[in-house]
């Protein structure tokens, strides 16, 4: 594992995150938290690998449990964000 190249991705992504998040309008801070919640469930990738591979039955079940938890978050997080964002409306032109 090349630790330094992984670290450089991480550091650069932190900077990208810093600038992107400061540009988020305060009115959307609640949807921001909901959607970051959903995307941090990309951890499902790790759970899927654990669930898929043979070798350790305990690891498999831990993985499957992880898949369930992360799926709740992914589906719930994106759906609730969508629901919130749909409510933000412009003034109706009369």
């Amino acid at each position: 594992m090349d630790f330094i190249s992984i670290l450089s991705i991480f550091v650069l992504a932190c900077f990208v995150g810093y600038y992107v998040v400061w540009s988020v309008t305060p009115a959307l801070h609640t949807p921001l938290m909901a959607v970051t919640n959903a995307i941090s469930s990309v951890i499902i990738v790790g759970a899927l690998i654990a669930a898929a591979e043979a070798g350790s039955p305990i690891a498999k079940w831990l993985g499957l449990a992880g898949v369930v938890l992360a799926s709740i978050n992914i589906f719930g997080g994106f759906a609730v964000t969508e629901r919130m964002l749909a409510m933000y409306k412009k003034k109706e032109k009369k």
Partner: protein
Amino acid sequence: MYRLLLAAPFLALAAPAHAATGEAVNPWVALAYLVAGVFFILALRGLSSPSTSRTGNRFGIIGMLIAVVTTLVTHDIANIAEIGIAIFLGGIIGFTIARRIAMTAMPELVAGFHSLVGLAAVLVGWAAYLNPGAFGLLVDGGISPVSKVEMGLGIAIGAITFSGSVIAFAKLSGRMSGSPILLPARHVINLGTLAAILVLTALFAMAGPSETMPLIVALTVLAFLIGFLLIIPIGGADMPVVVSMLNSYSGWAAAAMGFTLGNTAMIITGALVGSSGAILSYIMCRAMNRSFISVIAGGFGADASAGGGEAKEQRPYKQGSAADAAFMLEQAEKVIIIPGYGMAVAQAQHALREMADLLEEKGVEVKYAIHPVAGRMPGHMNVLLAEASVPYENVFELEDINSEFAQADVAFIIGANDVVNPAAKTDKSSPIYGMPVFDVDKAKQVFFIKRSMGGVGYAGVDNDVFYMDQTMMLLSDAKKMVEEIVKALD
């Protein structure tokens, strides 16, 4: 946008190096995870304006789809049925929660979701520990010390996120008292536990393969414990910071797992979410003029409530009725409404919008002013107003509207208190001194909807606005009062 375009090539350059794992990784796989990461960046970028936000959310969904499909097609899956059931089960639960949840309950929902990310990180960390071969972590029959450090930290951060979020959820949803619970010598206990976790991580990394089990068990248990201990002393008023902070932790947990598994999508996302939560915590602390450390140390509002019981002189105030308020609102040219957590509790946002509609029909200009810490999480009030179909152009942030109070005929305060307290500007001994507040004292007339004169804000300080000449107290349940005003306006 251009900043992203600048950063993307750097990320792309860094990506192929990730292929240098134990087993040869297909560069296309690494590329797919990178693309997923970029979609997640675009998802957050979309939130810079309500008009682009829904596209952003779709980008997030696409990114997630890419990450999941990539994982599934690149691994030999022995039990696709079980995995399908797991995803389906989680999906149904998630969808149902998302559809049913009331907008006022958003803070506890987010806290609950954070706890799931934390627990998932712990599970993945443990799975990687038990079956390192599956993740390509086996080097000479064992896990390398670097991987073990990443694994240990990932499990620890995940566990802290989990137990901390569970407490935050319990406090926000009223299953547990919102007031701070102060253990004696809690700072010593907390710092000691944190130090123990770091020492255990180091021991775990250096231990031989046969000795690691008790260390990682102890590490996990201690991390669950510290998450619990960290959040119980923090009171209800500081919950916006806590929720943001746990948001940040859930990101760092995902990033730590990304380091362990060498997965770019997880690292990019973890970094994004981690910085997002950190920035939100910073914004919340700044809006309360408190340092992050003092919020984390906890106990705010615990002693102030005791002090409030002392015999205070009864100061005279004016009380009005809904009819009085309706009459004056009709005469006004400009009304600024300041909603707070009390509005959310009373579910008064729909009635409020009706009132604003009626006033606008009569030619009154109505604006909404939102303080960054109004409510129990960042942006909470904005969502509630959006739910009541208040157009977002009428909703303003503190610094954008504060100068307009001098021209406003009416400042209409509903369920807010500390955010309009002038003591924050003048009284150096006040616990909220230095917090930016709305200059409602400059408005010609102030209406203050409040349940009774007894309760004071979370900070437990008296508010001079109650006793000003131009203030009229409307003592009632927020929703009932607004509904009565609506009736009187009709």
